[in-house]
């Protein structure tokens, strides 16, 4: 204990010292002050209006305006994506614009854009209608013409079914008759022609059949060209149809069905001359419209491009503004309604920086009164804040994933900077692979400036965020790979010659009689001669497993020792006595002892079976060790270990059951231990604590 007491305090392992501060800001400079504080990022405001719903807060209107602006920005980016304009984010140096100006500007742009959209939509609709008409004219005209001219069926563009042909001819005959009769031309068979979505055509035909009780003839042909749907902007396949029928009632029914299926009907004159005339007219108008449409689209794209170049900047601006007002909503008005009162936490080292920033805000906003900033006595426990840089940040994040340390608790991230990459390398160990990893890490680090400014994919982002972790992992992998003597799983003679050689030149009995040792041991790492030998696997497995046990036990010891420093820092004697001590004894009397055995076995070259020793320590503590005896007094040590363990367990359990004082006391004030409820809710917290102090370093 005395040794530990004389150690220096491990301040670099703890989170920053925090203080609770109050800010009283005049209303006119509050916004600027919060903006600057936000850029500094060293003050955490406490929500003083927790009981109020979002729209009862002070700056609700500004927040609403921000959400409205971000909706407009989303609309722009949506439009830009739809139009396929690739606006390069040019860092055009444009003067900073005011928030109000921006709002007006956004409104203007949206209005313009919406107007352009409605215009082009109208044009597009007429264009589509004309296009459909053209398609109907050409296809339906073809169908009609073919039925008019039964002598030359080869002219038909459609390859129809033979059955259809016959029926077609029949109808053609009827039509022909109508033409011949002249006067009764319209009284016989009539037709309706139009265009319908291809997917609906089948159901449409069935419905027509049912509605007219089969007294109709349905003829259709694929439209060939895809038509753009004006609403969704997608290209859809359509089918041109011609329905022949008789009777007025059927006509009204068919028109109704057309309507309900969204089929548009276009009149097609029967005479070829008229048809050609209309076709020509429609084509002319189509080309006219096309020119206008293209001009409109170009105009719109230009507008979108100009918006697109600024979009990124504006989005950031609006987001910042919204964050500022959200923060301001956490503040309270004081009694005079002239000042905003805020409370929050900041690290002690940042106080001077914050004061500078507040001064600056007062000056810039031409406020008469300065901002009052003073420390207060905290009511609840402070938040945890770790200062990190680009190197330690990734490690801190890995540790935070397991649980964030409480205020002033030992931060395992400091150790994990080395232990995490090293333990990775113990598993990965191969200097060939390590070099590949190293090159990757170098690429990421050298292009750091460029990569950090652009948006990366989710995987790349992860790799980039952990670039220094990868770097260390690579370095340790190379180191461990050299120890394992593996380069893409192949050993090399780097550090001189192998210590073993064959008994004779031919090397014929290498696999039966084995090799003999001729030199000093291989200077660094595993001797390459192990490669391919019969005992390679047992040797390496034994080596690596024992090494892992040693490293694991020391890692766990480190974690528990950290919890000692923690308890000592918080002046918690109970924690030391009932948590640190039992854990230490338990771990070391079992696994610590095993580690000791391993070390002795390595040093002496003994043949003892450690499995046997460990198992029979429990099954038969008093029995004779025989050839497994590694050192003098081993039996006595084992018995004392066991007794220690047992007492320890009882001690632990009794503490738990007695409930008088919890074995996992957490509160810094010993007063709380008298309560039953304390230990009940302390348990889960204790597991959490254990995880952060042990799990964090164990990883």
């Amino acid at each position: 204990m005395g040794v530990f007491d004389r150690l220096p305090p491990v301040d670099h392992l703890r989170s920053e010292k925090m203080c609770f501060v109050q800010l009283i800001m005049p209303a006119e400079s509050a916004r600027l002050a919060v903006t600057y504080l936000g850029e500094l990022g060293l003050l955490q405001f406490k929500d003083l209006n927790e009981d109020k719903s979002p729209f009862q807060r002070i700056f609700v209107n500004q927040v609403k305006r921000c959400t409205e602006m971000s909706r407009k920005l989303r609309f722009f980016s949506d439009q830009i994506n739809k139009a396929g304009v690739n606006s390069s984010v040019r860092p055009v140096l444009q003067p900073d614009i005011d928030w109000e100006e921006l709002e007006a500007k956004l409104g203007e742009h949206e209005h313009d854009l919406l107007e352009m959209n409605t215009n082009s939509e109208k044009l597009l609709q007429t264009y589509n209608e004309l296009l459909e008409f053209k398609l109907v004219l050409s296809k339906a005209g073809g169908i009609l013409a073919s039925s008019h001219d039964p002598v030359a069926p080869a002219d038909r563009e459609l390859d129809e079914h033979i059955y259809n042909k016959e029926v077609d001819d029949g109808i053609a005959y009827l039509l022909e008759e109508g033409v011949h009769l002249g006067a009764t031309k319209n009284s016989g068979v009539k037709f309706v022609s139009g265009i319908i979505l291809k997917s609906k055509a089948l159901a449409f035909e069935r419905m027509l059949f049912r509605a007219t009780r089969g007294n109709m003839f349905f003829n259709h042909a694929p439209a060939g060209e895809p038509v753009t749907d004006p609403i969704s902007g997608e290209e859809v396949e359509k089918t041109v149809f011609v329905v022949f029928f008789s009777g007025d009632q059927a006509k009204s029914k068919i028109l109704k069905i057309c309507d309900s299926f969204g089929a548009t009907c276009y009149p097609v004159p029967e005479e070829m001359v008229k048809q050609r005339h209309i076709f020509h007219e429609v084509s002319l108008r189509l080309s006219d419209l096309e020119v206008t449409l293209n001009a409109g689209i170009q105009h719109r794209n230009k507008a979108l491009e100009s918006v697109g170049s600024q979009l990124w900047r504006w989005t950031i601006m609006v987001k910042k503004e919204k964050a500022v007002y959200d923060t301001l909503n956490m503040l309270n008005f004081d009694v005079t309604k002239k000042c905003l009162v805020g409370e929050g936490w900041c690290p002690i080292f940042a106080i001077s920086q914050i004061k500078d920033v507040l001064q600056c805000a007062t000056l810039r906003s031409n406020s008469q009164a300065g901002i009052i900033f003073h420390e207060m006595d905290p009511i609840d426990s402070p938040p945890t804040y770790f200062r990190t840089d680009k190197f330690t940040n990734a490690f801190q994040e890995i540790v935070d994933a397991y649980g964030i340390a409480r205020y002033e608790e030992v931060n395992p991230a400091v150790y994990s900077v080395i232990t995490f990459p090293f333990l990775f390398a113990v598993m990965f160990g191969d200097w060939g692979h390590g070099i590949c990893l190293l090159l990757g890490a170098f690429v990421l680090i050298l292009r750091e400036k460029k990569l950090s400014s652009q948006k990366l994919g989710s995987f790349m982002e992860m790799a980039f965020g952990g670039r220094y972790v990868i770097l260390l992992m690579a370095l340790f992998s190379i180191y461990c790979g050299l120890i394992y003597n593996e380069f893409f799983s192949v050993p090399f003679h780097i550090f001189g010659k192998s210590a073993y050689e064959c008994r004779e030149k031919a090397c014929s009995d290498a696999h039966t009689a084995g090799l003999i040792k001729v030199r000093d041991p291989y200077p660094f790492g595993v001797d390459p001669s192990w490669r391919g030998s019969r005992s390679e696997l047992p040797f390496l497995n034994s080596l690596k497993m024992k090494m892992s046990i040693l490293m694991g036990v020391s890692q766990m010891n480190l974690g528990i020792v950290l919890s000692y420093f923690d308890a000592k820092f918080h002046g918690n004697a109970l924690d030391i006595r009932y948590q640190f001590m039992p854990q230490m004894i338990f771990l070391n009397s079992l696994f610590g002892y095993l580690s000791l055995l391993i070390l002795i076995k390595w040093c002496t070259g003994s043949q003892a079976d450690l499995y046997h020793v460990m198992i029979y320590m429990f099954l038969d503590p008093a029995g004779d060790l025989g050839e497994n005896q590694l050192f003098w007094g081993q039996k006595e040590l084992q018995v004392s270990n066991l007794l220690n363990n047992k007492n320890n367990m009882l001690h632990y359990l009794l503490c738990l059951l007695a409930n008088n004082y919890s074995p996992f006391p957490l509160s810094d004030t010993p007063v709380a231990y008298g309560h039953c409820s304390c230990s009940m809710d302390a348990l889960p917290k204790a597991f959490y604590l254990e995880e952060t102090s042990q799990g964090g370093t164990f990883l």
Partner: protein
Amino acid sequence: MYGWEMLSFNIHDGFLEAIVRGNRSGLLTASDYNNLCQCENLDDVKMHLTATEYGPYLQNEPSPLHTTTIVEKCTLKLVDEYKHMLCQATEPLSTFLQYITYGHMIDNVVLIVTGTLHERDVNELLEKCHPLGMFDSIASLAVAQNMRELYRLVLVDTPLAPYFSECITSEDLDDMNIEIMRNTLYKAYLEDFYKFCQKLGGATAEIMCDLLSFEADRRAVNITINSIGTELTRDDRRKLYSNFGLLYPYGHEELAVCEDVDQVRGAMEKYPPYQSIFAKISYGESQMLDKAFYEEEVRRLCLSFEQQFHYAVFFAYIRLREQEIRNLMWISECVAQNQKNRVHDSVVFMF
């Protein structure tokens, strides 16, 4: 196999049950409703809703909002969730989920037929239809002149066809006939759904049959109250009641001869589960009856979440969402028309 569902339920339906329970936790709570009731205008409503699960559906709406937009977007969320569940479902859960929508299908058919009778525009009517009850050829309902045509042209392709066989008459469509058709269809649908749930067995049968019986009894009461003073004969009225439920058969005999609301009340108070509903409303009053029934329904639906390994949670979730959308519609209407004192008239709190 009652009680053994837990052995095999999760093989096919565990994932979806987890999904539906997760969705349930997104339902608005009493504190949400309290906040919503304090809103000053529809923008406040939107702002509050963007903080809930409706957020992604409402955040891109431009500012002058209308009640219909809010309701439409909220319904869209329900439809999206329903479609997602239907995609993931296997038999017999997928059939069960489809059964839930048949009620909306009946309502939509009736809506379109009544609309065309009064010569409304079909597209306008289509917008009013509930999206869960849509089917492909729904628009062509407008073509039909009488019930026989209705069946032969359109409904023969839909799942409603078997229910229709009971009510085909060659009479022309008028308001009365349509209303009778709606109730006959609903009766057939509820009976079919009831049979289907009984076939499924286990906890599903137990809970669903209870819920459906309540639904059938509520419809019976509503039919009775709405038909008082109309030319519907007692026998015809009797025929519209579903042949199951707590009231079947003796309660139906009594309801069939009721001539005013108090007689209905007298008939219903003989059934203990319904006593509490009628105890809440004073004599001669039938306006509040709807709310009382809704409250009882919500209570029962919420209770179905207490048990695991059954399908009733899907039914309950969709019904609860629908109730929630009704609540939101009422609140938004009250807020929009500045009648906040009436907000609590029709809102049914859930949790």
